[in-house]
């Protein structure tokens, strides 16, 4: 299960996708929206994706995991649209016979997701400013308000 969704992520969807009577260890990762980034107050986040390519890349990550660890039970879901503080942006589940492999594979999935899956985050600060984020730095400060950005609360 590799999915871009606009729905709330509960975790049950990825967990159910990997569970089975012969898989004893399930490792889950949830990324949630924090109320601050480097100390600056965040109002909400907006995620945009290129869904067909994102889902294809997620499946490729699962294929890499299958080759590295022999684990075939991997599920990933990433939400897009506006997310409030505390909401889950991404969930990854890995079921494996050995817990060590499960932790490694789940971490690997998240590392790769951030490298190759076309999804972008826009931070909407508490003061109303907004900007697209790039890895390790702000990529682009928007001069004009973004079309989908909330201007008031």
């Amino acid at each position, binding site marked *: 299960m590799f999915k871009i969704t606009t729905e709330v992520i509960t975790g049950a969807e990825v967990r159910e996708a990997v569970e089975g009577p012969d898989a004893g260890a399930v490792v889950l990762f949830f990324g949630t929206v*924090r109320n601050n980034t480097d100390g600056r107050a965040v109002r909400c986040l907006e995620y945009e994706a*290129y869904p067909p390519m994102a889902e294809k890349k997620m499946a490729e990550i699962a294929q890499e995991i299958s080759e590295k660890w022999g684990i075939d039970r991997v599920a990933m879901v990433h939400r897009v649209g506006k997310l409030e503080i505390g909401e889950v942006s991404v969930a990854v589940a890995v079921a494996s016979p050995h817990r060590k492999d499960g932790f490694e594979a789940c971490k690997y999935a998240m590392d790769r997701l*951030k490298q190759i899956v*076309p*999804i*972008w985050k826009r931070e909407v600060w508490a003061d109303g400013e907004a900007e697209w984020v790039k890895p390790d730095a702000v990529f682009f400060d928007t001069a004009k308000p973004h079309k989908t950005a909330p201007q008031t609360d």
Partner: protein
Amino acid sequence: MNVTVKYFAVCHEMLDRSEEEMELPEGATVQTILKRLEEEWPEIAEFYEVMQMSVNWEYATENTELAEGDEVALIPPVTGGFDV
């Protein structure tokens, strides 16, 4: 030939559109599209070095040749998932 070009995130914002059809000469490559966009909006070229391109949902290079009906996309640095 005709291809679809998609713009996401900061590119979407800069160009003020999320996708368009482009008519390209035979033998066109990804580079052909980049040059055409630069003519319209010179600032976008500043971001080319950090940006990637895709053709039919796969990462591509400037030299990737295009064919009728291809779906091309400008891929700004991806920032999905969780920050740190």
